[in-house]
């Protein structure tokens, strides 16, 4: 369905030097700098997969989406979508894909979304009956049925994004790229959109590539997680296996009595419980340790420290991803390509 082989993308940007002399120099001889956004990247996505793409700012997520969706050409290597070179897709292939950009609304602000949907219906040649059915169903599921004829500028951010998503799915695409679709949205809107995407992936078998900085988005929707750093894939694995890794550890947060004695951490038998200190505040401590040891560890903490409050949680996925960024691997939960 989607394939990237030794994909490389280099952007050439001009260097703007400071000051008047820099400005005058740039008028005559401008310097350029090459920025490598993606470096020898390999990725294969099969039909029906729901893939989460995460990475720090500048890791190359959006560039990868642009290359796979055919928006920009690759510098070298290959990006293929639906068995064709992505940058040279024909209308037949483009009719089977869709793109949602969280930061760039596609629908026109000054007119109701329904007007833009009619244009999209014509562009994608959606039969009228299918169009009416899907529009009604999606609008109901996303809870915006009464907003279709309201000017887009009068809708909230969450409602506008829901309209974007309706517009993106009206033609029943086989491949959908979503670039930070929940950015800036409230919790309820995010949850509604996540549910919609998961249902669509399960019911229609659409292949979905989702980029997001919100780990909850990824956890709630994706089955596979690809992590990028500096233009390369540093982790590509099943998110269920990753979650299993998480369930094997616990995060324990301890809040100490403010008036109590400052604890001497050297006296705590951390090695005995295979625990490690991961955070320290003014009157708080955070530990990570195997789930099986948590009960005994908590007992020990109550014996040795003046505990005011204590919480035991599943280790957050964010922590694991930070570890992946640091070390490039998680034992047994994926692969570093």
């Amino acid at each position, binding site marked *: 369905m989607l394939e990237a082989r030794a994909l490389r993308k280099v952007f050439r940007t001009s260097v703007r030097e400071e000051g008047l002399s820099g400005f005058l120099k740039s008028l005559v001889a401008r310097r350029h700098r090459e920025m490598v956004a993606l470096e020898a990247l390999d990725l294969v996505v099969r039909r029906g997969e729901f893939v989460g793409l995460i990475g720090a700012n500048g890791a190359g997520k959006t560039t990868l989406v642009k290359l796979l969706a055919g928006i*920009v050409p690759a510098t070298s290597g290959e990006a293929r979508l639906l068995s064709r070179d992505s940058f040279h897709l024909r209308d037949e292939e483009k009719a089977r894909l869709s793109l949602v*950009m969280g930061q760039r609304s596609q629908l026109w602000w000054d*007119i109701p979304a329904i007007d833009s949907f009619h244009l999209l219906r014509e562009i994608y040649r959606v039969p009228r009956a299918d169009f009416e059915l899907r529009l009604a169903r999606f609008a109901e599921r996303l809870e915006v049925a009464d907003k279709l004829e309201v000017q887009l500028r009068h809708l909230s951010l969450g409602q506008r994004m829901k309209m974007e998503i309706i517009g993106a799915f009206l033609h029943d695409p086989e491949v959908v790229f979503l670039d930070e679709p929940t950015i800036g949205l409230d919790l309820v809107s995010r949850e509604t959109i996540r549910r919609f995407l998961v249902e669509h992936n399960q019911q229609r078998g659409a292949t979905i590539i989702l980029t997001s900085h919100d780990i909850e988005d990824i956890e709630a929707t994706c089955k596979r997680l690809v992590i990028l750093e500096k233009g390369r894939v540093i982790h590509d694995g099943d998110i269920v296996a990753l979650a299993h890794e998480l369930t094997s550890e616990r995060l324990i947060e301890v809040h100490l009595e403010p008036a109590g004695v400052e604890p001497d951490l050297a006296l705590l038998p951390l090695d005995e419980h295979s625990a490690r200190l991961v955070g320290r505040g003014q009157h708080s401590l955070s530990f990570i340790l195997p789930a099986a040891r948590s009960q005994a560890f908590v007992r020990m903490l109550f014996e040795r420290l003046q505990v005011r409050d204590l919480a035991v949680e599943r280790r957050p996925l964010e922590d694991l991803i930070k570890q992946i960024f640091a070390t490039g691997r998680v034992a047994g939960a994926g692969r570093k390509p």
Partner: protein
Amino acid sequence: MSTVAFEFARGPARLSRLVLRAAAWELRKVAAFRAGFWLKEVFRNLARPLVMVCVLMSASGLPQGVAGDGVSLQHAVAYMVVVALLEKLVFHDRCLDLSDQIFQGYVTKYFTMPFPYFVLPAGRFVQHIVLQAAIVVPAWTVLSLVVPAWCPPPADWSSAAMALCLVLLGSACFLLFYFTLHALAFWLDVVWTTLVMARMIALFCGGMVLPPMFLPERVQAAFAWTFPWWTVAVPVQLAAGSSEARADFGRGLATLACWLAALSILAAVVWARGRRRYAGSGM
């Protein structure tokens, strides 16, 4: 752009439907705000000819008449009034916001859609012509009934048809011209200045600032190689029933057809090269 021709050859019905739907969409956009509609669609392009009429009326107090060879005030004012009417049918640079869309990345998603992007500007063109025709025809009818000396009606139906033909062809040339300039946004940081300068030159070449009768013969001969000249200056004279203009109708058609072909190729090349350069900013 070349894909537009290819798409049209493959499915003229489908592409025509798409352009009409895009035109309807554009009409909804321009009519979204009433005040904006009146200012931008109804009263657009009227200020400059009105100013020129005032200038001509002031100049008419000069002993030698309005121009050196004694061109009458009525003739000059009538010319500017008809220019104001016909110019409303001419596609102008503010009809497109392509450069803004490129700068801010709003054009990105259209590149993933199964249609040639030029369908949208084509739809805007159709919407512009239809809307402006709906304004110009009644306005010209009323003015020619109320003040026929200052706003004469077309000499006859054939003159009107010939004038309209040249205006529409020329307007299509303007569409391609401004589309190409807007597409320079793939390279330039600012396109607005280029558009304004190009528009000023086009207005002069088209006799929309100074009536041709005020220009030396050799300047008129030079402007006759450009498409703006045949878009407004000649149609105004055709509508007035000028036999010289009628004789030049064939030449006008040929000149505009050549410009249309050349601008189509230029727009296609600029667009294709710009697409390869596009980085999808703002995404």
